[in-house]
């Protein structure tokens, strides 16, 4: 019986979402940005693949001293993640902000709770209905993303499929985090308008303010400046080599290992600097699902991709880098993003827990 009532509430909530104009509208936008992002990502991927193929064939060129890697299919999802981080959050907020407050306003909550149903069945049913709708929406997006890949003749291998699965899972957790925050606001506010405003304030706080605190200026104050390449090393180099990825993991590799001692020392300083900065950023990220999501998706989508041509400043144009002969396994990636995934699990759990407690003690008058 208890499960029956929970399912009854969840089914009603699910159909309410699926029939709601706001859900359909934001879901439509999500689909469009996913398709646009995929097409853009595939175009970039193909270009990178062409560069890789050119490099492979140009073994006599001056650049043959470094090793390039075949680009990862995961890089295609980078631009999808860029859109999803905002549109997904908005979808979660739109689905959650009036779940309880709307029932308070319309007085249907009083009617609902006068029926033989426990309050936890009502709040769990609401969450379950929302989660099911969100999962369905993400499943469709993922399905279309994979279909787009196949249409362009790109077939992911097993490990790439696992990473795509992780990408989908963290995307779900991001949306569910904001859904849970919105649901919490909906339980503590009497009006949906208020709940929406406060949810948006929290969204701005977590997705703009916290990441701003982790910007370069603040970082410089907290962890100092990045160590500069000693002049003697620059002098030795015909082509300085620098490597940085979007996730700020850093490594330096030279093809000419004539002066390993100086390089190793510098490399160690740079690694320590970036590790320290990453630790501070990870700490900030624990308070922002947006940062956690960006951290996870950038790690996933930039792993096993070819390096970037960067400017190291001082008028010296650097060539690029890759970790020589290294490929990152799924286990390695998971190791890097585990804290972020844990935080992404914690956020919805905490806010849903708060919403649950509040709803259980709600005086319905």
């Amino acid at each position, binding site marked *: *019986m208890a499960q*029956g*009532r929970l399912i*009854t*509430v969840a089914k*009603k909530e699910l159909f*309410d979402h699926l*029939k709601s104009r706001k859900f359909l509208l934001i879901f439509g936008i999500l689909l469009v940005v996913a398709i646009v992002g995929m097409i853009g990502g595939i175009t970039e991927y193909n270009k990178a693949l062409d560069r890789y193929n050119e490099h492979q064939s140009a073994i006599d060129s001056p650049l043959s001293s470094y090793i390039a890697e075949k680009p990862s299919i995961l890089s295609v999802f980078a631009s999808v993640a860029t859109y999803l981080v905002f549109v997904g959050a908005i979808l979660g907020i739109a689905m959650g902000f009036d779940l309880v407050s709307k*029932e308070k306003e*319309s*007085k*249907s*909550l*009083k*009617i*609902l*709770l*006068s*029926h*033989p*149903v*426990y309050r936890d069945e009502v709040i769990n049913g609401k969450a379950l209905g929302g989660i099911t709708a969100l999962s369905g929406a993400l499943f469709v997006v993922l399905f279309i993303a994979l279909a787009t890949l196949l249409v362009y003749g790109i077939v992911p291998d097993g490990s790439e499929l696992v990473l795509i699965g992780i990408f989908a899972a963290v995307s779900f957790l991001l949306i569910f985090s904001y859904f849970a925050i919105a649901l919490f606001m909906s339980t503590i506010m009497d009006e949906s308008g208020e709940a929406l405003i406060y949810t948006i304030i929290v969204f701005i706080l977590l997705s703009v303010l916290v990441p701003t605190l982790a910007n370069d200026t603040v970082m410089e104050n907290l962890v100092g400046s990045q160590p500069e390449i000693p002049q003697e090393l620059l002098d030795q180099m015909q082509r300085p080599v620098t490597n940085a990825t979007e996730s700020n993991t850093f490594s330096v590799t030279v093809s000419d290992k004539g002066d390993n001692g100086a390089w190793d020392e510098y490399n160690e300083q740079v690694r320590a600097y970036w590790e320290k900065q990453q630790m501070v950023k990870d700490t900030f990220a624990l308070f922002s699902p947006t940062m956690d999501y960006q951290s996870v998706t950038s790690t996933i989508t930039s792993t096993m991709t070819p390096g970037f041509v960067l400017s190291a400043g001082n008028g010296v144009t650097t060539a690029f880098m890759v970790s020589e002969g290294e490929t990152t396994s799924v286990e390695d990636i998971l190791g890097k993003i585990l804290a972020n995934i844990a935080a992404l699990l914690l956020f919805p759990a905490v806010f849903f827990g708060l919403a649950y407690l509040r709803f259980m003690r709600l*005086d*319905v*008058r």
Partner: protein
Amino acid sequence: MIQLEHLTKVYNGVRAVDNLTADIPEGEIFGLLGPNGSGKSTTILMLVGLIEPTGGRCLINGLDTVRDPVSVKQQIGYMPEDVGFYATLSAEENLTYFGALYGMDPKVCRQRTAELLDLIGLSGVNKTVSGYSKGMRQRLGLAKALLNDPKVIILDEPTANLDPRGVADYRKIITGVAQAGTTVIVSSHILEEISRVSTMVGILSAGRLVAQGSWKDLAEDLAKKDGGLVTIRVESLDPVPELSHPDIIDVRYETGRFGAIIRARSDIRGAVAENLALHNVRIQGLSREGLTLEETFLSYYQVAG
């Protein structure tokens, strides 16, 4: 059937319901009367299990509303004053959803829904509840309260938005279910409405139940308590001046003051006549009347403080 035992609810230090004790037998229509803020709605919300008492308890058919909320709710049908439904669903869809929460078989629920919508005059209305008038929503609220064939029906201001035909239908339905053994609690401030349907009445004042019984019993009790309240009707051709007498409880003047209704502790018609004559008021009539419903209610309310 329903026992309220020392029921108390305190909101932010204010006793909305104060040590309320009552016993409502099966098959009675119990009218809960009281002015705004007297604790009627709070009492009903505790009965329905929507708020928890600060002290005391409510028992419905022997079940505690706090300890066995789901079992209690399975046996009651409730219609709040500001009845709210899911606006994007039709009447059938709303009732089907609530029927599912009662654990009703879908086929039985559909059949019952059709019967009830026919009973309240909403069958064939093919629109969502968002397009319903307040009166239609209130009719639907009554249907919802009857959906599970409850042992107890609790109605808060059930006729507030109904048209005369709707009120007549409501009275017929409520009287019918009570005759079939269902206990009904009706909260209202419309005395006429309560007097038409209720077999028992309880008067609340400042959260306390100041009287309980039939109207006749209450009027008799009141008369005994106060040594016999007397209502005197004055009809005059000249405006009635301010009247004063130690036994007068209150005076209501009619429009233009060409008449007044005096409530007094004794028959003071002689003194009133003298007073009016003193002011050269031509008297058309000076009669003693029995207590009206309103007077009985106001007397109890006044006695309570």
